[in-house]
């Protein structure tokens, strides 16, 4: 199994020379099984680059199939959707899975994202590809061909997001982005979800000092990401959802300090990089 980070940035994309190594696109993660099956987590601006690779393959001929899991619908996790070119090719089959939030079905939220005020697409019905939007029941497993996907809700400020465990080829990756565990610690459900995973991708938007000013914003400190990795017994930790204020140099420093503080090998997720699991 292989993971490629297409977008690692949180909140707002960061063009410019100070963000070239870690990358400035907002969240998108591709997981690929040895069988060739793929699954995509989130539709941030990173998917515009992923789309180019897909279009050069079977998606360009309208023969692609892709399951997409949305952790939640804050804009940095969906803003690539209207520009995800496989959606414009008839014949492609794209299945978006996410959760209902405060009684608003996922499909309605995405429909609103594309309404005439905001987008010249005017609605999901105008995307040529077959698009299926499914509401995920919290805590459920999700059959995606080639993978086993388990989910669990995780706290994110005043709301919650979907954390997931994706298993294939005897390996597991757990993605917990946009999470802020309560002061008393990570929930048992999330510990179960992430236990003994091979790679934990965890929100680490803030340095420990920054976090002291940003508690309650729904994001984790690097320290909290490390603590979670240690608690669940992850083999490796990827710091993810980098702050738009963190330059490459600042992230280098963050990683150096974090490595010293962690008993688990870690790295900061980098756009365009493949990680073998």
């Amino acid at each position: 199994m292989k993971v490629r980070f297409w977008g690692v940035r949180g909140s707002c994309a960061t063009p410019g020379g100070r963000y070239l190594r870690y990358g400035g696109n907002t969240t998108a993660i591709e997981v690929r099984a040895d069988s060739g099956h793929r699954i995509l987590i989130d539709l941030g601006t990173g998917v515009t680059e992923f789309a180019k690779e897909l279009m050069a393959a079977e998606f360009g001929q309208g023969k692609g199939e892709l399951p997409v899991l949305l952790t939640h619908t804050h804009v940095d996790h969906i803003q690539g959707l209207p520009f995800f070119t496989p959606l414009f090719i008839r014949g492609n089959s794209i299945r978006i899975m996410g959760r209902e939030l405060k009684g608003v079905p996922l499909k309605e939220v995405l429909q609103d994202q594309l309404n005439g005020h905001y987008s010249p697409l005017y609605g999901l019905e105008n995307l040529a590809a077959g698009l299926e939007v499914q509401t995920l029941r919290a805590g459920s497993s999700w059959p995606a061909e080639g993978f086993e996907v388990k989910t669990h809700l995780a706290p994110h400020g005043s709301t919650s997001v979907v954390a997931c465990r994706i298993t294939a080829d005897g390996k597991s990756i757990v993605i917990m982005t946009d999470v802020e565990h309560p002061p008393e610690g990570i929930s048992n459900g999330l510990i179960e979800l992430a236990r003994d995973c091979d790679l934990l991708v965890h929100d680490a938007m803030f340095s420990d000092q920054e976090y002291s000013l940003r508690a309650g914003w729904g994001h984790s400190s690097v320290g909290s990401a490390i603590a979670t990795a240690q608690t669940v017994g992850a083999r490796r930790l990827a710091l993810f959802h980098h702050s738009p204020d963190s330059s490459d140099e600042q992230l280098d420093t963050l990683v150096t300090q974090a490595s010293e503080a962690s008993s688990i090998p870690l790295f900061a997720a980098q756009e365009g990089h493949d990680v073998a699991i």
Partner: protein
Amino acid sequence: MYLTFWGVRGSYPVPGAATVRYGGHTSCVELRSDSGGCLVIDAGTGLRALGKKLAQEFREPQGATYNLILSHVHWDHIQGLPFFEPAYIGDTKIVVHAPRAAAKELRQVIGGITRHEFFPVDLDAVPADFEFQEVTPGTEFQINEFTVLPIGLNHPFGAVGYRIDADGSSMAYVSDTAPFDRMLHKQHFTAGVEEPSAEDREVLSKMRANLVASLRGVDTVIYDTHFTSEEYEQFPHWGHSTPEHALEICQEAGVRELVLYHHAPAHDDDTMDRIAEKFGVLGKEVNVAVCVAKEKMTLIMGEVTNPGIVA
């Protein structure tokens, strides 16, 4: 009067090595009068960095008022708004001027991007006070020392450009718009070019004539030139223009300087260099100075030839 570009890109922000020189942030321009008055045009991702600067500048005294004028509310023109730092400072007033059927609906539209599904902070919970003003094409209005004339444009769901005069100089912001020949954009989805009816042609012709008249003698015009002419042939129904079209309009209106703007995400720095060179030459032939918008570039209105000052 002078202006600074904070976002020059169309559609979506484009990070990466290919956009470092021209910039990858979406639409946002800061306009300043000689006495320091500030007007922000469009609220794409470039607004985040501008907001940080403004919050610093206006830290004291409290009670600053910011005026934002929007061409329309497609995502690439508003997605910086939730990250506008002054919105999180109490006792701040943010006046949003935009074209909508009613100011109430405008509040709902802008409020929509900050509702819980899209952003963690609800508009009503934001410390700053928001006020919404509807603009109407052809109806001039005043924002402090700036005289603002909204101009109807040809874009899906509708968009307006603005001519702005202050300090005896003038600028215009013409984005987003398609040319005025192939089709009239309306409030519905188009999968391809829709042949204009006789009535549509009349609307287009009036829209074009009105734009030229409104731009008459303007010092600097910022124009949506998203497409090369070859790309435009493939996507004439997307609501964007070409440098050729922008130059034609500016020449006709006797504009001094044309700034190419709203660059397509796929146009890397080298492509933009080639466009700058080509249209610099073509512009000279018709007596219009042409330059390409770059992030952080400052232009002073009213100068005869202005290569741009990169901050």
